[in-house]
């Protein structure tokens, strides 16, 4: 196992395709125990950047240095073909071998343990996202890449899942690269924010970015204000079927 603190480092990374830059000159570092969040408007290259970090492109400009093989990925879009009969437990062991206990534990963490034997096609969008997240964390990765991991999850669930992601990064001491649109929620759980718009617009701690001129230009004054509103915490957490599953302090 590599003990280096930096899991992935992008230096001046970019992709030039069909005579235009999808994204260029991205400098980015993901360290153990830290959450890096990519934000930016549609088409700003968030997913592309994540895929560069994962090594999914053959020819890129710049440089990517990856110090781990133990990677989990939650893609933005996963569609399960109807010809494929896959249950949640089959999906959990897709790229890894897991003990039954570990499967149950991970599903429990994301609040979908009761769906263990369900077919993936019978799940709702939100439930499916929870399963995707459970699969990714079950393997106890060094690096976790989450591309809009809570899309379609209800609001309380969203808050719970983000705090779970935060918890995981501390517990497993893994690095997390997170792509998200839920600026107001995600900012509080993030160590470092990179604001993309074809290139790195601005980056820094959530507070720095929220106050930056570029950020306001991209997302407007309103969203900058929103960021400061969301500062309180709930005193309990619900599972997806509405039961209280955990008290926070």
């Amino acid at each position, binding site marked *: 196992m590599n003990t280096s603190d930096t899991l992935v480092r992008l230096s001046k990374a970019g992709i030039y395709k069909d005579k235009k830059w999808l994204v260029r000159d991205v400098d980015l570092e993901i360290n153990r125990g830290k959450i890096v969040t990519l934000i930016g408007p549609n088409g700003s290259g968030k997913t592309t950047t994540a*895929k560069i970090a*994962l*090594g*999914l492109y053959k020819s890129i400009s710049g440089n990517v240095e990856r110090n781990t*093989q133990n*990677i*989990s*990925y939650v*893609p933005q879009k*996963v569609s*399960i*073909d109807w*010809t*494929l*009969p*896959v*249950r949640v437990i*089959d*999906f959990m062991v*897709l*790229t*890894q071998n897991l003990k039954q206990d570990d499967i149950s534990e991970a599903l429990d963490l994301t609040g979908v343990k009761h769906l263990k034997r369900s*077919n993936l096609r019978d799940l709702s969008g939100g439930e499916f996202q929870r399963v995707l997240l459970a699969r990714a964390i079950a393997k106890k990765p060094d690096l976790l*890449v989450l591309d809009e991991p809570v899309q379609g999850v209800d609001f309380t669930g969203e808050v719970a899942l983000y705090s779970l992601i935060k918890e995981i990064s501390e517990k497993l001491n893994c690095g997390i690269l997170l792509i998200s649109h839920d600026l107001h929620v995600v900012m509080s759980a993030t160590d470092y924010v990179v604001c993309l718009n074809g290139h790195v617009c601005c980056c820094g701690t959530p507070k720095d970015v929220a106050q930056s001129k570029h950020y306001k230009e991209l997302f407007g004054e309103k969203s900058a204000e929103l960021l400061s509103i969301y500062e309180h915490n709930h005193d309990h957490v619900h599972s997806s079927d509405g039961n209280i599953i955990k008290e926070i302090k």
Partner: protein
Amino acid sequence: MLDDFLVRAIIAGIGIALVTGPLGCFVVWRRLSFFGDTLAHSALLGVLLSISLNINVSLTIFVVSSLVALILLRLEKSTNLAGDSLLGLISHSSLAIGLVILGFLSFIRFDVLGVLFGDILSVNTNDLLFIWIGGGLILAVLFYIWKPLFASTVNYELAEAEGMNPERVNAIFTILLAALIAISIKMIGVLLITGLLIIPTAMARNLSNNPKQMVVLSIIGGLLSVFIGLYASFEINTASGPSIVVVALILFILSLLRIGKKYYEK
């Protein structure tokens, strides 16, 4: 006992059905049925080459089909044609080239129908050896690449990101498909091998809710098709390939009853 052609055919059929089950599942899951068809059509070319050059049939088919598979994978990357057009192009071209060559080989007595639809009478002890050793190898390799292949079937990028090397296992899978075609052409025929790959699997899909179950059921479906099909072929003197595929179709129709029931119960 192996002297009896029916016994030989049944032993050959069992060997083939054991392989078509799991491979067929991946063909269905990955939507490769037309791809399988294309490889099968190129087998006619292989048969004719083996006759003109006087080399082993199965081996020649394997080489020709593998080459066609690799050409296809290569072309898919470097042309702007959609996959199905490309497949149609290769599939019918190879069939046509095969038939044109056949025209030149008029001095050889050659049973075209046998190649197209299979002929149990032609299965000899040598073929049995090819089927069982080849089939065993195919299954061994498939077992070895099962996890990465399945992962890349469910989601290519996820598999690649988590270090499963989908490009390599995909290429290996197409070679396995070519190998299956090589060992089964004599029995099932160029035009119908995809049927044996797909129809029992389609039946299994109707009855299963997880991947392993689907594989097991499609093997069972394939075995039943082979047994009943060969028996019918022997009793009422029909061609072996079509008989096997018709039985598979009947099994599929029966499986629809079950799915209708399930729908009703919901």
